[in-house]
């Protein structure tokens, strides 16, 4: 005859197993998942901390540049160009070089998409001007020297020189200057 106490003990064991299976084991799974989530969040937070730190460093470095230097950079490559001012500057350069100034015309800008090669090699937007002058050979050479000394780029793209009367040369120059090509978009942030 099986004693009644044995039934109770078996029942106790069954209850213990049931508690472990139904409560403790799922809790283990939940603990594991929660720990994974915590680790993920910690990793991502560390990344953001690094990014914020780098951004703060870059902002500090940028702010450490003197106002004068920033102004020069902005002059060298502005957001947009002023065709009238640049035409005037070219005219003044021509007169300073000693050539006879004839004409300067704004000849438009290069296509926006044609200069984009890849994200790492983006070139600014080109704007063209056509300058017509007359002068001696040395005066024309001096014109190119003066163009190189300008505060912003006046890049010579085309030159056409032909002999005119006497020692004079008729010169037509295509000059390029640049404006910033904005590449910042939401996808970069």
């Amino acid at each position, binding site marked *: 005859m099986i004693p009644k106490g044995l039934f109770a003990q078996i029942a106790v064991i069954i209850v213990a197993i049931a508690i472990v299976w139904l409560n403790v084991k799922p809790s283990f799974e939940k603990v594991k998942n929660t720990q994974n989530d915590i680790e993920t969040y910690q990793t991502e937070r560390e990344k953001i901390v690094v990014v914020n730190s780098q951004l703060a460093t870059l902002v500090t470095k940028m702010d450490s540049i003197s106002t004068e230097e920033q102004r020069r950079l902005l002059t060298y490559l502005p957001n947009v160009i002023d065709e009238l001012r640049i035409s005037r500057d070219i005219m003044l350069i021509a007169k300073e070089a000693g050539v006879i100034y004839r004409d300067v015309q704004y000849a438009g800008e290069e296509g926006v998409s044609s200069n984009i090669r890849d994200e790492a090699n983006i070139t600014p937007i080109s704007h063209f001007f056509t300058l017509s002058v007359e002068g001696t050979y040395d005066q024309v050479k001096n014109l190119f020297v003066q163009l190189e000394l300008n505060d912003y780029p006046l*890049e010579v*793209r085309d030159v056409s020189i032909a002999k005119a009367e006497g020692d004079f040369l008729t010169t037509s120059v295509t000059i390029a200057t640049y404006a910033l090509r904005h590449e910042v978009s939401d996808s970069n942030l």
Partner: protein
Amino acid sequence: MPDSPNSSFIPKRGPTPSRRGSPSKRLYLFTFVSYMLLFASLVAAGGMYLYNVYLDRQFANEVKLLSEEMQSFSVANMQKVLEFDSRLKQASSRFDNSVSVAAIFRAIESVTIDTVMLKSLDLTRSADEKYLLSASVQTDSFDSTIFQRDTYQQNQSISAVEILNVQASVDSSSEESSAQSVFSFSAEIEVPVSAVLYQAGADQIFPPTTVSTPEAGLQEVVPEPDTEEPIINDEII
């Protein structure tokens, strides 16, 4: 005394307390183990519950910290930095490819021989790779043509030279009694951008000349260049 009728010859044990049989030790151990299991499972359940509560709080804290870090990220600063970086890179690209056109002229001057005259000159920049020069040249003999071509090829600033359309004619407009042969040709010259990059201070060999307005007529003062006198005449064209 007569014997009792129930007496037996088998001796009877005296009234001694009977011993109970001791319970089986396996059953006691089993009981202990079963109750320990129950106790352990209850403790484990309670412990897991408390640990879960702790982890949930920790997780909520991490979420809060992450949210704070994300909010501390300044989009405006990022845009400012990106724009500045873009401006700097684009400016650098143009600065690194700045060319001295005057250096191209110096190079052409240094290799143009005395007997050659350039009638016209066209210069075109091909991206940031090279300048293409197309010159209409006049000289007095075939030998000069060949010599000029060889001189162009020997110059380090010139990467390629091609002589085209060589034509011979007689120049009867000369003041001399005998007509002179005139040879004309086109020269296609390539000058790589890397050979004529702008260098600060290198272009100050041509100080400005003084010239008055066209109405007053030309009063030209051409100072001596600082470099040694080129092979050619004072005028290329």
